[in-house]
C-alpha cells in the first residue's frame, strides 16, 4: 500500500488549464460509463445490482478514507452505513406517513447526517489510538450496535427490519422513482458527487495530514498536528459518507434490516477495499464493483462461491497486497516502461501456466462439491464443456496432474524465465 501515497504531489506546481482538462477526463469517462450502463443492463435485477455497485462504491471509498488514507483498520464501518440507512428509512416512513415535503433526491443526505452524528459519538471514543487498539474498539462497537439492534426494536424494526416506499416522497425534478432505472441514475449521480468530493478531500490539508499521521504520527505532532484530531476528523468524514451510502441503499432496496450494521457487512467493505487496492483512489471502486458482482452472480453459478470468495481474498493478500487495481496499474507502468516488449512471451507463458493451475483448482473444487454435497454423486457432472463422472478416479487424476504440472512449469521454468527477461532489460 505504500506505492502511491500522496499522489497529488507530482502535479504540485502550477494549476494550468491544460492540467485541469487532463484531470477531468477520467471523470468524464466515468460519467459516460454510468450513463450507458443501463442500456446494457435492462433487467430489474441487473439494475438493482448496478445500483448496489454504486452504493458499494461510495461505501468502499469511505472505508478507504480510514484504511488507505489514515491507516485505521476498522472492523465496524458498517455501523455508520447501517445507522445512516436507518435514519434515512425513518425519514422515508415519516414522509410516507405525513406527506412531509422532503424530496427523494435529498433522502441520502439524511443518511449522511445520521452517519455524521454517530461518527461524532463513536469517533470521539475510538480515535485516540490507531493500530490494534482502534481495530479492536471498532470491532467492539460493531458488536455492540449489532447486539443492540435486537434490544431497541423500535428503532431497528426487530429482525424483520423496516420497509419504506420510495414512490411516496416528491421528486425535485418530477422523476418517477418506481422503475429501477431511474433509481439507478439517482445512485449514479450521488456516487459521482461523493466520489469527486472524496477525491478532493484527499488533497486538502486534512487529507495530507491523514497520510502523514498514518506514516509517522510522531512527526505529525512535531509539525503541530494532533494525530487524534486528524484521525477523528477523517473518521467523522468517512462515517458521513458511509451514512450517505446507507441512505442511498434504502432508496434502492426500500427495506433495511439489522444485518446492514453487522459484522458481515463490515467485513464485506473491508474485502472490497482491500481486494481492489487501498493504495489507489480507484482501488476500492474496482473492489466494490467486483465484490457486488461476485456476491450477486457467483452464488447462482456455484455452491462453492463462498470458498472461491475466501480463496480470492487470501490470494490477493498473499500475492497482490497492492490489490487488483494495483496489479493492473503495475502492468500498465511496466508496459509504459517498455518491459512488456522484451518479456511479452515470458509473461504470456507464466500467466497461462497460472491460469491452467487455477482452472484445474476450480475443477477440483467443483468435483469435491459434487461428490460431497450432491445427493447423487454418480450423476453426470458438467464441467468446462465436458460431462464427467465425478466419482471415478480419472477426472481427479487428470485435475491433480494438471495442477502439479502447471505449478511445476510455473515455478521451475516460467518464473525464472520471466525474471531473466526482466533482468536482461535492466542491464541493457
Amino acid at each position, binding site marked *: 500500500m505504500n506505492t502511491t501515497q500522496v499522489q497529488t504531489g507530482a502535479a504540485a506546481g502550477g494549476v494550468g488549464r491544460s492540467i485541469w482538462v487532463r484531470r477531468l477526463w477520467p471523470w468524464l469517462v466515468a460519467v459516460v460509463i454510468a450513463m450507458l450502463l443501463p442500456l446494457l443492463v435492462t433487467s430489474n435485477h441487473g439494475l438493482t445490482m448496478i445500483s448496489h455497485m454504486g452504493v458499494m462504491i461510495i461505501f468502499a471509498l469511505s472505508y478507504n478514507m480510514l484504511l488507505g488514507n489514515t491507516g485505521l483498520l476498522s472492523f465496524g464501518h458498517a455501523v455508520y452505513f447501517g445507522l445512516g440507512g436507518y435514519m434515512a428509512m425513518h425519514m422515508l416512513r415519516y414522509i410516507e406517513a405525513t406527506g412531509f415535503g422532503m424530496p427523494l433526491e435529498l433522502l441520502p443526505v439524511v443518511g449522511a447526517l445520521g452517519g455524521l452524528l454517530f461518527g461524532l459519538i463513536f469517533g470521539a471514543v475510538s480515535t485516540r489510538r490507531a493500530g490494534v487498539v482502534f481495530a479492536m474498539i471498532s470491532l467492539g462497537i460493531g458488536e455492540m450496535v449489532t447486539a443492540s439492534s435486537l434490544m431497541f426494536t423500535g428503532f431497528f424494526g426487530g429482525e424483520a427490519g423496516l420497509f419504506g416506499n420510495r414512490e411516496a416522497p416528491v421528486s425535485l425534478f418530477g422523476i418517477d422513482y418506481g422503475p429501477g432505472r431511474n433509481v439507478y441514475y439517482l445512485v449514479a449521480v450521488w456516487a459521482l458527487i461523493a466520489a469527486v468530493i472524496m477525491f478532493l478531500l484527499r488533497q486538502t490539508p486534512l*487529507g*495530507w495530514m491523514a497520510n502523514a499521521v498514518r*506514516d*509517522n504520527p510522531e512527526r505529525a505532532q512535531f*509539525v503541530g498536528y494532533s494525530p487524534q484530531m486528524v484521525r477523528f476528523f477523517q473518521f467523522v468524514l468517512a462515517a458521513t459518507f458511509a451514512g450517505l451510502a446507507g441512505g442511498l441503499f434504502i432508496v434502492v432496496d426500500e427495506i433495511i434490516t439489522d444485518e446492514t450494521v453487522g459484522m458481515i457487512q463490515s467485513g464485506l467493505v473491508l474485502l472490497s477495499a482491500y481486494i481492489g487496492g487501498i493504495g489507489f483512489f480507484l482501488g476500492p471502486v474496482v473492489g466494490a464493483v467486483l465484490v457486488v458482482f461476485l456476491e450477486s452472480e457467483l452464488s447462482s453459478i456455484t455452491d462453492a462461491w463462498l470458498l472461491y470468495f475466501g480463496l480470492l481474498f487470501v490470494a490477493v493478500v498473499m500475492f497482490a497486497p497492492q490489490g487488483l487495481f494495483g496489479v493492473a496499474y503495475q502492468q500498465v507502468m511496466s508496459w509504459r516502461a517498455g518491459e512488456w516488449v522484451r518479456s511479452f512471451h515470458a509473461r504470456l507463458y507464466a500467466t497461462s501456466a497460472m491460469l491452467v493451475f487455477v482452472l484445474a483448482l476450480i475443477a477440483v473444487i467443483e468435483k469435491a462439491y459434487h461428490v460431497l454435497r450432491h445427493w447423487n454423486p454418480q450423476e453426470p457432472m458438467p464441467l468446462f464443456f465436458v460431462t464427467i463422472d465425478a466419482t471415478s478416479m480419472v477426472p481427479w487424476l487428470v485435475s491433480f496432474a494438471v495442477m502439479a504440472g502447471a505449478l511445476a512449469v510455473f515455478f521451475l521454468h516460467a518464473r525464472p524465465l520471466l525474471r531473466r527477461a526482466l533482468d536482461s532489460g535492466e542491464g541493457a
Partner: protein
Amino acid sequence: MSQETALALKGLTKNFGRAEIIRGVDLDIKANERHVIIGPNGAGKSTLFNLISGRLEATSGTIQLFGREIDGLPPHRVNRMGLSRSFQVTNLFQNMTVMQNLRCALLWSKGHKYAFWKLVNSQQEVTERAEELMERLNLTAKQHVPASLLTYAEQRALEIGATIASGAKVLLLDEPTAGMSRTEADDMVELIREITTDCTLVMVEHDLGVVFNLADRISVLVYGEVIASDTPEAVRANAAVQEAYLGTEVH
C-alpha cells in the same frame, strides 16, 4: 540581543522506574541566543529534548516557553506555541516527497489546521514558502523525490527544513551533524547559522568544533545535571567541566 527568556527549565527531573535520568535541571535560555548542550554519552541530552518538546512527561519541575508553562502539554501543543524540534535519527514522512514534507510542516503554521474545504495545492503561500525553503536547503532539484530515497545528508537537511519550516521562535536540534562528513557538517553549520539569525536555537552536539564555532552559550550536562552554563570561553576554562568532560574526552 534581547534579554527576554525564551526557555526556562526549573528543577526538572525525569525518572524511568528507579533510574534517575534527569536530576534537577535548571536552565535559562535567552531569546535569540544559540545555546548548545554538550555532555558525555548517556548524560540525558536527548531525554532533556524529549521533555522540552513534550515527547516525554517530566517527573517533576516546570518548563516555560516565553513565560508560559508547557510541561505536560502534548507535542503538537508545544509546537503550536512556537517550539520546533528535529530528531537525532531522521524522522520524516518517508513516503512523501521533499515538497510534500515541507508543505506538511508548513500547513499548521500557515493557519490551515484541519481544513477539509480547501486544496493544499492552491495555497500559494504554502507553495511559495516551501519553494523558498527548498532553495535554501539546496533540495529544489529533488523536490519530487520521496524522502526515503534521498541521501543521508539530504535527509538531514530536509529534517532541519521541516523543523524550521513553521517559523518557530525556538528550535531544538538534536545532533544535526551526526554521521556527516566534514564538508557536509560544515555546510550544515552554515545552514543552521543562516536560519537562526532571528530565533532561539537549542542544540545538542558532539562535535566540539561545531559547538565552539556556533554557540553563544554552552551548557554541560553530566549524569542528568547541568554542571556549567556559560559562554564558550568560560566553559572552556571551567575546572569542573574539564574534569568531568573535557578532561576525559578532549585531548
